[in-house]
């Protein structure tokens, strides 16, 4: 059985993986999580089951790697915010901080669906839940994010 050269996987899914990482982390950490995601994927790639959905697989790894970094730095991310930063960057930080404050299930649903681009059915499979449950978690999460980010302004 033939398998696409890994370079093509990076080409096709690199931006999506970065979005997932960046949603949860600042830029430098997102770069690290991005690299760690593709290194882990590269290692497992030759033995990945044929017919496996590459993008769902990658988004799941990316989410896990980003959460790893977030756990290591949770105080930093949730805690202090530099006083003067560009508006775009401030909004990114807000998003990362707000996401970090969501209950885990909501955060996962939001990140996998909205930033990873997985349909709810696939998010449900990744999270071993039902489509209805993850749809609810996602919309609760988005509502909560808006509140969190509105309050912080």
């Amino acid at each position, binding site marked *: 059985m033939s*398998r696409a*050269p890994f370079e093509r996987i990076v080409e096709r899914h690199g931006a999506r993986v970065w979005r997932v990482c960046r949603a949860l982390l600042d830029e430098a950490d997102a*770069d690290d999580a991005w*690299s760690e995601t593709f*290194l882990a994927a590269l290692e497992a790639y030759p033995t990945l089951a044929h017919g496996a959905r590459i993008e769902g697989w990658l988004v799941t790894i990316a989410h896990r790697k980003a959460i790893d970094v977030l756990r290591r730095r949770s105080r930093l991310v949730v805690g202090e915010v530099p006083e003067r930063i560009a508006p775009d960057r401030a909004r990114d930080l807000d998003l990362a901080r707000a996401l970090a404050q969501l209950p885990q299930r909501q955060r996962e649903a939001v990140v996998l669906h*909205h930033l990873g*681009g997985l349909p709810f059915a696939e998010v449900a499979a990744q999270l071993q839940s039902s489509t209805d449950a993850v749809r609810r978690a996602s919309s609760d999460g988005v509502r909560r994010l808006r509140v969190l980010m509105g309050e912080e302004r």
Partner: protein
Amino acid sequence: MTEPLSSGVPFRAAPLEPSADRVVELRARLADRAAERGLLDVAYRSLDTELGALLLASTPAGLVSVTFDGAAPDATLERLATSLSPRILEAPDRLDAAARAIDDLIAGRARAFVGPLDLSLARGFGRDVIERLREIPYGETRSYAQVAAAAGSPRAVRAVGTACRRNPLPVAIPCHRVVRSDGALGQYVGGVEAKQRLLRIEGAGVAH
């Protein structure tokens, strides 16, 4: 399908796009780290030469493949993924030395490829033939029949032609020095013009 994250603000996903520069940098760094961790089985790059755009690929053991499709390498990359490993990344830096060595040969600045070669894509009789090709001196030619004899199978003239056509490392391993017994050039994996050019650079006298 996806509920737009931007509806009603107060945040949107747009700023989360990586810039083109960042993507280039990330991919270069990925190749380096993959190599450090022993996860990069095949590195590749393209190389513009007077013979056209080449595709060079290497394993940790050395240069493993030279093909004449640097401008459209998809088919070759698929083949390398199948026959060697799908752990393939574009990593020009890792092929700097090999690219220089190939360039030197094509420009006539070197008489032999300098650097490690990985012959794992040549198997069986093809491998025997490839080994014989490396013994043909710079600036000289041999006939397909002579190479067949040297490989210990004097009647396998046709198979020698096939082995030359399948040489995984043309230019580096001089299959261009094998010509027909009547002095005509015969075929070449990179086209007859490329063969002619290589032999002219070497100063080998050939009929046209």
